[in-house]
């Protein structure tokens, strides 16, 4: 059970990213996250779980367990998979209220958005919106 606050987890990620000298290393980190993401059931690769606006395909499933939102995800591109993995490592297991009131600003602090190609940056925005929407709907 996660006992740290959302902000503490986000700060850990900011610290982690600040250790890398160049973006290639950050990508290597994201690739590792992507490779280690738990398997996603094939049966959940449905169109309604597909996040629109991403160039590569990204599926996100959300369910509620003990009052917390649990996210699982997959993508056919490994860096995108690493990004969604990073997002669910932060937001999965949190209450809808916590997520809905978060400003997602840690992503700006690690410089993720501006270092993605425009199409991927749009994809990231779509991922954030999907997570935010899932939380808002379940408040």
């Amino acid at each position, binding site marked *: 059970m996660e006992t740290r606050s959302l902000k503490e987890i986000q700060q850990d990620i900011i610290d982690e990213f600040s250790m890398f000298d*160049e973006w290639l290393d950050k990508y290597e980190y994201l690739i590792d996250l992507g490779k280690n993401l738990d398997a996603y059931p094939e049966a959940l690769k449905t169109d309604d779980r597909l996040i629109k606006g991403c160039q590569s395909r990204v599926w996100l499933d959300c369910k509620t367990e003990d009052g917390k939102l649990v996210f699982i995800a997959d993508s056919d591109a490994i860096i995108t998979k690493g990004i969604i993995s990073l997002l669910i490592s932060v937001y999965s297991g949190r209450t809808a209220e916590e997520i809905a009131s978060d400003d997602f600003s840690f992503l700006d602090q690690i410089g993720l958005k501006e270092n993605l*190609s425009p199409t991927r940056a749009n994809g990231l925005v779509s991922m954030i919106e999907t997570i935010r929407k899932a939380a808002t709907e379940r408040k």
Partner: protein
Amino acid sequence: MKVEQIRKEFPLLEEKVYGKQLVYLDNAATIQRPRSVVEKWNDLTLHCNSNLHRAVHKIAADATEEYETTRDAVRDFLNAESRQEIIFTSGATASINLVAFSFGEAFVKEGDEIIVAESEHHSNIVPWQMMCNRKKASIKVLPVDDSGCLCIDRLENLITDKTRLIAVAQISNVLGVRNPIKEVVRIAHSHGVKVLVDGAQGVVHDGADVRDLDCDFYAFSGHKVYAAPGTGVLYGKKEILDQMPPYMGGGEMIAKVKFSGTTYAPLPGKYEAGTQNMAGTPTLKPALEMAKSLKDKEISEYHEQLTAFVLDALESNPKIHLYGNPEDRSTKTSIFSFTMEGVHHEDLALILDKMGIAVRSGQMCAEPLMDRFGVTGMLRASFAHYNTMEEAAYFIKSLDKAASMLL
């Protein structure tokens, strides 16, 4: 002439990205511009900006002179018979749309057929679909084989007495294979069918002699052959252009305008409605000069060696599937599209980008071709004559490094 000398003419090649030397391998999307082209554009914008063909003043005359001598230069470059056969457009897409509309109006009726190659860019598919929808005509597809070569032996059987035109690229923007254009034209003409050649990629790799090809239309974009963006050319045989109605109305495309009826200007004005790209179009002069100068023997041989090197390296990598890999290697140009087993093309492009290498990933505006090969996208590295062997070697090495990160 040495490649190092040419590179000096292209300032962008000296750029650094993420602190690394840029290696620009997205030339099939747009090629970099030499100083001569930028200077021409700059000069005309600063010192010779006036609308064309209209006013009597000195600046207007000079601007018109620049524009019309460009037409002569393009005529010369394409070896067209007459300057009336050279129409300036905003690019290959605009050129093809013009033909699809105007040729359709003049020659296509309900039930007629257009043949389009499976490997075409969307710009040489969608305009024909739009025209066919309007005219209740239909499109037949000329397939490519597994190696990316046009199934030319199938063409004869596709042609019926309802076929009006065949639209085919000189070189596919994905496969990088030289299509047998002369053979397509020979077969088409033996049935009275016209041929439009999309020269968007071909113009910079091979140029074109339209009289030798005997094609009825030839379209290309300026920005893929060193000229300013928003410039383009349509070549059409005079007797056909004369029979087609204009595509757009307005500006200097008229002879007489009355509310009782309007008559149109003779060629080429008839197809050049509205204010023309007066600073951009004349950059075709230095641009085509550059293209011609790169036909230099030493440069050409160097580029062939580079092409062979990349082809060998990609072919010998068991993880790589190259699309457009003809048995006859002389038909392969330096456009390489491929997928890597177990790796998403986008991931590869993203890693290469951070290594300083600009490549293209995705469907490359050729979705039917992606479907044909059963892929969601490909990675494309496209080389220009200014690219060096060192850059090619760095690309191959970086590809391996990226793969080891991703796999």
